[in-house]
């Protein structure tokens, strides 16, 4: 006799199917979430996806470089590796002093690595990409190029990939300015 599902079996199977469908639905939603690290630059709040961030720590000492463009804050030694420190405030023309207690974000992907100097690290939060606004009316200039989107509270999510790419392409600092 061939196995035939009883109505009871069918009920269980249906329920299981629903359950599975639910899980799938949740997973789908999850892929729309990105994990963002937020930080402050002057009065403004910025964020970068954590997948581009290797670590965050306070900047202890650094060496400034002569004749370098303003957006290069200097160089520092991270576990005996030398990293250039990029000053986003200079890049975005934000007129605010960098506090003494500042922090570094190591931004990197594959063969590229830079340190970004930030005022302070705020928090890490999951953000739904659907909530990101890409209307750019409030943003101007260089920031536009690295924008992933804006959140309702005004914080700016930067596109880590584009930022790295721009730094990569600017082999000549004069091009960058």
């Amino acid at each position, binding site marked *: 006799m061939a196995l035939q599902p009883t109505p009871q079996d069918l009920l269980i199977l249906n329920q299981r199917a629903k359950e599975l469908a639910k899980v799938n639905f949740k997973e789908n939603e999850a892929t729309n979430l990105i994990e963002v690290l937020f930080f402050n630059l002057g009065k403004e709040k910025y964020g970068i996806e954590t997948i581009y961030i290797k670590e965050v720590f306070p900047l202890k000492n650094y060496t400034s470089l002569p*004749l370098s463009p303003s957006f290069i804050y200097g160089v520092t*030694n991270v576990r*005996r590796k030398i990293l250039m420190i990029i000053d986003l405030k200079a890049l975005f023309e934000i007129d605010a002093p960098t506090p003494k207690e500042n922090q570094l974000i190591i931004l990197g992907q594959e063969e590229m690595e830079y340190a970004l100097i930030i005022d302070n690290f705020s928090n890490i939060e999951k953000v739904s990409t659907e909530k990101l606004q890409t209307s750019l009316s409030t943003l101007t200039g260089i920031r536009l190029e690295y924008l992933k989107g804006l959140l309702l509270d005004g914080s700016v999510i930067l596109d880590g990939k584009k930022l790295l790419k721009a730094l990569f392409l600017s082999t000549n600092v004069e091009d960058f300015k």
Partner: protein
Amino acid sequence: MSHDEEEFLKKLMATFKEEADEHLQVISTGLLSLENGLAPPDEKKLIDTIFREAHSLKGAARSVNLKAVQSICQRIEGIFSEWKLENLKLTKELFDLLHSALEAVKQGITAPIEYDKLSQLLDALTGAAEQKKTANPEALLLAEQAHDKTPSPLEKSQTHSEPQQTSCVHPAVNDSFSKNRDKSVRISIAKLNTLFQQVEEMLVIKLLAEQQAMDLKNLFNELESLKKDFQKFIKESQQDKYFFLEGNEKVFEWQKKLFLAFEKQELALKQAGEKALRSMKQGEQNAHLIDSMVDTSLEEMKKILMQPMSTLFDTVPLMVRDLASTLGKEVEVKFSGGAIELDRRVLEQIKDPLIHLIRNAIDHGIESPQERKALQKPSSGTLKIYAIESDGNRVKLSISDDGKGVDVEKVKLAAIAKGLFSHAEIDEMSEESIKRLIFHSNISTAEKTTELSGRGLGMGIVSEKIDNLGGQLEIETEKGVGTTFTLILPLTLSTFRGVHILVSDKHFILPTQNIKRVLRLKNKDVQMAENRETILLDEHLYSYIHLSQLLSIEGKRNDHDFFFALIVKAGEQTMALGADYVFSESEILVKGFEKQSIKLKNIMAATVMERGDVIPILNPSELINNAIQSNHSPTIFAKEAAIRQLARKKDILLAEDSVTTRLLIKNILTSEKYDVRTAVDGKEAFDILQTEKFDLLITDVEMPRMDGFTLTAKVREIESLKNLPIIICSALGSEKDKKRGVELGANAYIDKNSFTQHSLLEAVQKLM
């Protein structure tokens, strides 16, 4: 696609690229030797080899799903199998087609090929395979079957097996090679580089150990002198009769206690000193041990990073072939010394210079077949590339063509046109120096000089690259016979040594290899000449600029009236750079900005000090170039070089009654390597002129006993002095005076009121 899968495919693709490169290299090298003709048995073997390579490449392409590459390889394989059966006629067209097919494969690996191009190529290849007779189907089948035993492409890529594995199917072909392979393994360069960096990092341990040994020694010395002081004090107190002064019982008790305490302290100090001595000795031993271990590891590591010269040569034949056929020239290329091993990093650095020199040789050196025939040379030019080891740690790499050679006259004209030298200077220069001019990397001049000399652009860059490696570049050329460039290179890159300097409050390192001298000078040693700061050293005038000015570093300079001058040489240029302090010269671990592509002005790399601070390493050639640019007067360097090369010093007689003016002019002239004799007035000058020979006379006008005008007139009356160039240098600057001077026979008239070093030297140079 999941992330892992994506990663896997990426990795697979990378492996494939590497593998494909090797296959392509073997095929193209094979084709080139076939084209040149081989003995039949060798030819057969070689055809087998390249057939197999094409087959493996096809399989590998299949595993990464590159259909276009796959189809091209299939067609190439088809041609080779016809070839094996001796069904094909080997024509130049066929070789051209195969080479272009290989080129297409190379492109196809990185980017999709256009459809039209692909189908055209495939048709051509199919056509070529069917060119003669229809293929013998049985033979083709057999040829295919021989390869069924090769591992399937998927297996290959999954196990990341090496392409040479196919050779196990044909053990006869590369027997010796496979035996050797048992004794060696392949390691990726990336892994080796990581390891090398780690070993290099150990330099820090070495430096730390040295520092520690030094600290311990200092500690011991301090304890010793403390102990001596203490002993002296105790001895003195014991001998002092007032020390044990009888009297108050309480005081006496205290004195006794105090004295006991002293003795205890003395003993403790002695023991501490002994411990310090032991530690010091141990520390010294450790430092010694670490020193030799680190040095040996580094040395061994460098040897591991050595690669044969042939890796550099491999790509040359194809390049030569392409270039020759585009330019309509016939070139045969010969190699020797491919087995010499040298540092991979050196090989990497000379790749571009080599390509550049080869291009130049074919483009500008070797003549077209017609021209060559007319010159009774064989229609095909020969390019010899050979390497020989010389004095232990060096290798000489020569690139020699039998073309038309460098036209020295054209180089001369170019240098004059560029204002680098005057006619007179050029005429005085040796042929050797003129030939060297084509390496002149003076930003604005390099182009024209070399363009006209028929040696293409960027010879300066070649020179600079070789210079950066601590190598030398030599040229031998004979008009109509050919040109040989010789690169003298180090086999391994020596450890970087640098000089640690202070500019304002900022620390920098300058590479030792570029520093000729370091001097402590007084501020007044800097003289103004030609509107720029200069330093006179050993009768040589160096342009000078303080680094704080060059690097625009504001801040406190030291208040002393002295500073340090570093005589820095980069390429063909030398100048003096000022610093506020020079600390030390030592071994330095260079850290590049590997993962950061922003190029920094004047800075080539950095180093990390023991305490963890980062110190930038300055780039000497950029510094000098920037200094020249900011001064808008590049010529002084070239002139210095030219004057250095003057075969004979020129003698100048200077008649001038003012002591100050006399010294000033004399200084200017001697700094430019002229020999100067002075006379206090016209009479004395005239007397000297009658007994001694001079190349030039410079005279003032208003002088006691005999004035300049009279002197000029009298000199011109003497037959042997008729052609002696005369410059009148006077405060009498009116047109009337000038006219009179010239009428009397002066060759130039310089007004002292608008006198500059430049105008004087210019006049002097013009007249000699």
